[in-house]
Structure formats: structure tokens, C-alpha cells
């Protein structure tokens, strides 16, 4: 039976279910226990599951992420919460040099069944050090999986799917999505983490997006429909490994593509998708592939500047009109 919930509560329900089902699963991170999580995701879990399973860690991102890797090697199924992607920069060495390499570097002797969750993204007037959208960086790295849930179903189901993976999985939860409403089943099922989703069908243009930017793309598609333009909207869901087949099938149908990505344009994941399209579907294109990304500026605090810096439905609509 389905019940109403939020992105935040759905993640909490998935964490609870995973920990009740498997004694090897535990949650570790800054303020996940007594505080209840910086975004209140794990609120109440300490009382239900105890301090061994809901493990408050000191402010030492590199070491508690590395400890997650070690615990995974040692037979546990750790879920490490890094409070935000901004702080994950302090753990990059462990992620890039250890988590991602250990299987290959050991000649296949090791697997690192580690799940790392973190909040990502801007749009909350958090200024330049708390607004990063760097999941595209992580998607650059072979040896890890990168998930970006944009729906309540994915927010919960991706955690359970990630726990079934033998290799490290990074889940980026957009901070603006935590209050998002939706439904989950009483018993949460793992979701597929191999495919992108076509979340709105259309024939005129393909809007490719993920995470919170997906909502902007869907808003833009609604407005374009009023102008008689039918946009197809793709939620990438998984940045690595990338489901190029779904992208190419859509572009083959619509012959135009706009990528909406909250990251900066230069060296962005949007650039990667654009390259995939031109490499594999160049002859299908009736217009250049376009990108709607953040302005190339450290995120400003003032709300009007922040709004101007981030991708917005208006910009997407204007960009689409320019291609038709």
C-alpha cells in the first residue's frame, strides 16, 4: 500500500528498512545521530537503532569516508553520510585514490561495497562554499557509481539498490528536494540503477537533465507545450555508468537536444552528454546541442544574483525557442 511522504522521509524509511533487514548495514557521518542529520534525514534513527548503527563521526571527512571503505572491506555494509558535497572535497583522496581503485589495483581481489550519501546543489542562498554541484566530477571516475535521485521513489529505492552493489556507490541528494512530496510503498523496493527515465514524452526536442534541474526542465516543458512545442524530458538518474542508449533513442526521435545541468558549463557533465550525442547521433541532429548550466561565477549570496546564476525554466524555454 502506498503512503504519502517526502524525499527526506523516504530516505529515512529506506535507511531504516535497510538496517532492520541487514545487521551489516550502519550509518556513519557528522551529526547523523543525536542531532538527527543536518537535513533531518536520520532524525529518530538513533533512538530506534542505537549508537553502534547510527554512528556520529567527528569532523574528519577524509578519515570517516576512508573508514567506510575499510569497514566495507572488513565485511560491513556502511552507509557514509557526508553532510554536503562541499565537505566531500576533504575526502576526495579516499574516494578517488582508494574507493575507486582498490578493486582494480588489487587485481580483482577486493570489492568495496560502500554507499556514500551527500547533499548537493545550490538555490538556498548558501553562497559560494555551500552551493556546489560537483557530482559531474565524481562521474568522471571509473570504479564508482554515481546516482542522482530526483524523485521520492528514487531517493528511497536507490539506497536499497546501492546496498546490493559490490562496488562503491555515491548518491547525491539535492538539498532543495528534501521537502519534495511523493509516495512510497510500505515495503520499499530497490529501483533499477542502470537506466535513465523518460519522464515526459515529446516529439520536438529532448531536454536532458537530472537532480533538481529536472524540475526546471519539466516546468519548461509545461510552458513550451502551451506554445505547441512538445518537449521530451529525460531524467538521467545515473551519471555513471551513463545510459546513453536512452538519450540517443530520444534524440533520434526529436533531432534536437538541450542539456540542463546545475554545474558550471566549462568541463561539465553536460559537455560529456553533448559529446556523446555528437559522437553517436550527429546525423540525427537538426540543430546544435545546447546547454543550460550555471553562470561561471562562485555562487553569490544575494537572492537575485543566485537566481541569475542558476539554470531556470525561463532560460530553458528561451534556449529551446532558439533551436526550433
Amino acid at each position, binding site marked *: 500500500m502506498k503512503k504519502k511522504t517526502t524525499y527526506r522521509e523516504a530516505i529515512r524509511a529506506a535507511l531504516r528498512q535497510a538496517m532492520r533487514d541487514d545487521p*551489516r548495514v*550502519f550509518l556513519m557521518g557528522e551529526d547523523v545521530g543525536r542531532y538527527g542529520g543536518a537535513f533531518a534525514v536520520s532524525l529518530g534513527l538513533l533512538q530506534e537503532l542505537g549508537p*553502534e548503527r547510527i554512528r556520529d*563521526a*567527528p569532523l*574528519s571527512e*577524509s*578519515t*570517516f*569516508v*576512508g*573508514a*567506510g*571503505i*575499510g*569497514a*566495507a*572491506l*572488513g*565485511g*560491513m*555494509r*556502511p552507509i557514509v553520510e557526508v553532510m554536503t558535497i562541499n565537505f566531500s572535497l576533504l575526502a576526495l*583522496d*579516499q574516494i578517488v*585514490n*582508494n574507493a575507486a581503485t*582498490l*578493486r*582494480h*589495483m*588489487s*587485481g*580483482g*581481489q*577486493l*570489492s568495496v*561495497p560502500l554507499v556514500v550519501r551527500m547533499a548537493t546543489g545550490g538555490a538556498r542562498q548558501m553562497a559560494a562554499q555551500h552551493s556546489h554541484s560537483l557530482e559531474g566530477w565524481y562521474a568522471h571516475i*571509473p*570504479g564508482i557509481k554515481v546516482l542522482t535521485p530526483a524523485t521520492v521513489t528514487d531517493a528511497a529505492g536507490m539506497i536499497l539498490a546501492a*546496498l*546490493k*552493489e*559490490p*562496488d562503491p556507490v555515491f548518491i547525491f541528494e539535492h538539498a532543495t528536494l528534501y521537502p519534495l512530496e511523493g509516495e512510497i510503498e510500505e515495503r520499499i523496493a530497490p529501483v533499477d540503477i542502470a537506466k535513465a527515465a523518460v519522464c515526459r514524452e515529446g516529439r520536438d526536442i529532448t531536454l536532458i537533465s537530472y537532480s533538481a534541474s529536472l524540475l526546471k526542465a519539466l516546468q519548461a516543458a509545461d510552458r513550451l507545450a502551451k506554445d505547441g512545442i512538445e518537449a521530451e524530458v529525460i531524467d538521467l538518474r545515473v551519471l555513471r555508468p551513463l545510459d546513453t542508449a536512452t538519450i540517443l533513442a530520444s534524440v533520434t526521435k526529436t533531432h534536437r537536444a538541450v542539456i540542463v545541468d546545475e554545474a558550471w558549463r566549462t568541463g561539465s557533465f553536460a559537455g560529456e552528454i553533448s559529446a556523446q550525442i555528437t559522437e553517436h547521433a550527429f546525423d540525427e541532429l537538426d540543430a546544435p546541442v545546447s546547454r543550460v548550466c550555471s553562470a561561471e561565477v562562485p555562487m553569490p549570496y544575494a537572492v537575485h544574483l543566485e537566481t541569475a546564476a542558476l539554470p531556470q525554466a525561463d532560460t530553458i524555454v528561451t534556449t529551446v525557442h532558439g533551436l526550433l
Partner: protein
Amino acid sequence: MSSASKIEPTVQGTAREHQLFLLREMLRIRRFEEKAAEVYSLGKIHGFLHLYIGEEAVAVGAMQALNANDRIVATYREHGQALARGTPANSLMAEMYGKVTGCSHGHGGSMHFFDISRRFYGGYAIVGGGLPIAVGLALADKMQHHEGIITACFFGDGAVAEGEFYESLNLAALWKLPLLFLCENNLYAMGTALARAQAQTNIALKAQAMGVPGESADGMDVLAVEEASHRAAQAVRAGNGPLFLELRTYRFRAHSMADPDLYRSKEEIAEWRTRDPITTFTARLRERGLLSDHDLANLENAVAAELAEAVQFAETSPWEPIEDLTKDVCTPEVGKL
């Protein structure tokens, strides 16, 4: 009085046999490293090569305190630990040759020996990067109630300047993890002397500040290392939390084969060479009538034969097929949990 009288032999046999075993293990490492340098110079192996010559007593002494179920985390200067742990010289040499028969299938090379069958969790080549991994392994054992299993984490004095050193010791102490920190202080972080990099050069004091009790031992004396490691490992095994051991040693060779060794004096190196862990131990065994010329020749011959075979094995081993280039990036579907 020799510290030897305090030690229970950890391998089958008498105290004499055990001491000859320690000598043999140190000789295996010394000659392995000399052979590695030789084949490197011949262009048979490439990449970085960090020799362990001078530090043999540390790996050999410490390893006597570890059980088969204990876990080991090491650094990029880990040939000694791998050999002392029992990984065959064949597979280590083949690894440096880049052959598929290597202990890491030729994916790691000199800096990344892995042998999970012996719970050797690898050589980590970002200084300090192995410490958090060791914290996690020890956490896993604690959470799974694997009583009596400890993790031994080797690192150098250079790692003590890294933030991960303080973070890891703090976390291990905070959570009372079964973790033995083994700091091989060879006085140089690559070319930077300890005193030029760290305001407080008493490393055990730093460990104490993090809540990890520790002490120092003479890393040039295999029996002293063994004795201190036994005591420390026993205490960690008892479940009272982590301990720290500083093993004061010296590398006789340059940091790596690429290092012209311009930052320290020949006199300093010569002074330390008088404390060579192998020659001093050999002399001590001779004085006590435990080692004859014949014994030593037999040991050397056995080691030489082992290494000749290792080189032969590496030379004749196959390369991994290029089709398998990306095979081990992700765990295959059949490995899904």
C-alpha cells in the same frame, strides 16, 4: 641482558631456530631488494621503486606479533612487510615485472602489493591514505565481534604530518578500535628531515595527545621490535583500544630509485650503517654461538635460490591479455551481493 630472553618463540622450534628464522627473513628482504634494484637498472621493472634496505628489522620483528587472522595495511615501501607476511617472492617479483601472475595481477606494481589470502590489504601510495582504511577494518572487526583480531597499520614519519594521522588516531581511540599503529620513523619524509617538517619530533607524544598510548623502540634491532610489537599487539588484542609504536629506523638507500640523495650526508648514512639490523644481529648470533659460517652460507644460498627462481618466474610469466584491461574496474555481475 639481551631482550631475546623475554621472547617466546612464535614459530615452531627452539629459540635458536626462531632467531635463525628472523635472520633468514631479514636476509630474504635485503636480497630481494638488491635484486629489485638490479632488475630495475636492467630496465626489467619500471615505475617507482622504494627500497626497504636498512629497515628489515621493523617488518620482520613486527610481523612476529601478528596472527593469521590479523589484518595488515602498509605503504608504498611495503616489500618487506609482504615478504615477512609470507607472500611468495615469485608473485611479488612478477608484480613488479607487471605480469598477470603478480600478487595484484600486474595492476599495482611495486607500490601496490595486495594479498588478501594473507589479509595483506595493500600498499597505499598516498602518504597517510592507508590509516583511515585501517580504522575501517578495525571498526568492522569490532562491530562484528571478531574478538582477538587486530589490524596492524604501517606508515612512515612523513604520514605523521598529514591530517589523516590525527583524524585516524582520534577515531581509533574514540571508538576503542583493535588497531596497532606502527610508525616506521626513518627520519626522512622523502628528502625532508623530520626536524625540518615537524615542530614536535617526539612522535609517540603526538599519538598520546590523540588519546593513543604509545612508546618507541629500536627499529634496528629485530628482537627489540619483536618484543615491543608482541606487548603492544597483546594489549590491543585484549580489546582496550589502539596502541602506537614508533620504530626508529633508517633507510640506507635513497627514497626511490629516482632520488639522487642530496639532502643527507654520507657520514650520517655511514653512521647508521654501523647499526645495520642484519650485520649486528648476525654478529650477536655468532657471539652467542648460535650461528656458524656454514649456517650463514646455507641461509644465503637458500635465499639466493629463492630469488633466482622468483626472477625466472617473473621473466617467464605471461602478460595479462589487453582484452582484460577493464575487467577489474567493477565487480562482475556474478559478484553482486
